[in-house]
């Protein structure tokens, strides 16, 4: 499994000089070539974790390795592998797109490569803006520039810290597409986001961090399966005053107006359960005029995990 891991974090903590504990005994492994979504409320520790890995914040106790190399001892080799798209739009407003992207490539020790940079800017629809000063670009374009800078040195690992915050829907879709293409090229992507649908749409695995602790790390599909709820809603032709007492099915509820029956069930449960519900209703002469099913979103799962963590103050543990 070690060869499979591009990032290994072991028992990492970080306490800021103010006394605030941003990270508390975090252990986490990121697999090579995956898209990993790190979710968490504001102040959960997402940005601190990314900042430590990228060298922006000094780490506390613990061990951090990227591709088997220590982030402090082997900082040059580690940082060459990493690209970062920060949360804030931090760019030199008076410089041109071309100059700023070229600067970043140089900072990472790469020789100038105008052909690659042209290809990169074209892929981000920035080529025709290459001589424009950054201050003249729209917010979405500036964010594209940040991505171009992060990719200018062809990193193996890309950190995207809230990449689509404040970005319009069209640009967000473009970015998602670009992220998928990077994954196809073998780049490992670690994404922090508030947009749950972003993680739901793209991530291979999801990690939830709250109050500096990793609450859960799981394959997205597995997480949805484990913690996701399904609902079967039956719309009745005429309202029921109440459910017959002889119907004893857990999770089956009548709406207050008597027009809908809702059956909530676990995605792990046997699909035969639905058949049993339908048969029982039929036997009691309850008909329906329409039905539909829905599945809980990652957002619902995230909220339930974080609120559960708040209530129980979960103990830290290794997450692989």
């Amino acid at each position, binding site marked *: 499994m070690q060869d499979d891991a591009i990032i290994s974090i072991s028992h990492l903590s970080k306490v800021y000089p103010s006394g605030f504990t941003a990270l508390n005994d975090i252990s986490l492994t990121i697999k090579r070539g995956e898209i990993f979504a790190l979710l968490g409320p504001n102040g959960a520790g997402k940005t601190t974790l990314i900042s430590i890995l990228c060298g922006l914040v000094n780490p506390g106790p613990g061990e951090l390795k990227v591709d088997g190399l220590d982030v402090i001892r082997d900082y040059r080799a580690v940082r060459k592998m990493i690209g970062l798209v920060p949360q804030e739009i931090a760019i030199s407003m008076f410089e041109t797109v071309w100059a700023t992207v070229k600067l970043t490539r140089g*900072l990472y020790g790469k020789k100038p490569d105008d052909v690659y940079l042209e290809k990169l800017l074209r892929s981000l629809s920035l080529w025709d803006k290459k001589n424009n000063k950054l201050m003249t670009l729209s917010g979405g374009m500036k964010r594209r520039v940040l991505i171009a800078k992060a990719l200018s040195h062809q990193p193996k690992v890309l950190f995207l810290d809230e990449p689509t915050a404040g970005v319009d829907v069209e640009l967000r879709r473009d970015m998602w597409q670009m992220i998928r293409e990077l994954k196809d090229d073998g780049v490992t992507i670690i994404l922090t986001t508030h947009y749950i649908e972003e993680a739901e749409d793209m991530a291979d695995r999801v990690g939830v961090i709250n109050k500096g602790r990793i609450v859960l790390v799981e394959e997205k599909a597995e997480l949805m399966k484990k913690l996701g709820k399904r609902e079967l809603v039956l719309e009745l032709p005429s309202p029921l005053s109440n459910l017959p007492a002889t119907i004893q099915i857990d999770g089956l509820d009548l709406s207050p107006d008597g027009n809908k029956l809702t059956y909530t069930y676990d995605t792990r449960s046997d699909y035969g359960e639905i058949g049993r519900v339908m048969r029982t209703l039929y036997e009691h002469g309850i008909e329906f005029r329409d039905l539909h099913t829905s599945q809980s979103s990652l957002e619902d799962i995230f909220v339930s995990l974080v609120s559960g963590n708040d209530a129980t103050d979960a103990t830290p543990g290794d997450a692989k």
Partner: protein
Amino acid sequence: MNIQAIKAIYGFEIHRTLRTWKQSIVSPVLSTSLYFIVFGSAIGSRMMDIDGVSYAAFIVPGLILLTILVESINNAAFGIYMPRFTGTIYEILAAPISAFEIVIAYVGAAATKSVVLGLIILLTARFFVDFSIVYPLWMLAFLVLISVTFCLFGFILGVWADGFERLQIVPMMVVMPLTFLGGSFYSISMLPGIWQTVALFNPVVYLVNGFRWSFYGVSDVNAAFSLSMIFLFMLVCLGVIWWIFKTGYKIKV
């Protein structure tokens, strides 16, 4: 060593200077030329020689230094302060570049600009004042050393400053007065008794006199001692910068 990174930062900073050439080059050359016209050509013609050097020529090294000190501090301070102010410092910190390389790049770019500026002012002075340089290589050595040292000092200032006001306080309220009082316009032997001793506590006296010695071979203090003082100040600045990167002071938490 990450040579590409040094080249990238150095080139970026030089480009910033060229982009703002009116403010960066023309403005200091013009204001120093005015000093040459007023104090050199106009008033200087009515002043007596000092140590066998005409007054107009006597003030040339001091006036060059006045500009070099202020510009060196400003260039280096803005060079590192602006990335901190705009947040772009993140890409310097995240890059595979050592503290030593960061300092070489920023201070190197700022010092290059100061040396070029000093040489332009030197050439400009020739239009207004007749002077010669006895030790041109020493003159160049002093110019480079003083530029580098004060760029290091400016770098510290740029890290320390929390706002534009703080950036301006040291060059305008400390360095400028010390330069004026450090013998740029007079020989400290012209001062009354006790003030000659007081003047020796002004570090700029050693810079001005060392630089002036390279021009005319005359100085209020020993030139070797002047050189030692510059090296000492450079070592102090390097020590402070080493501490900044070791502790992450105002750069990294």
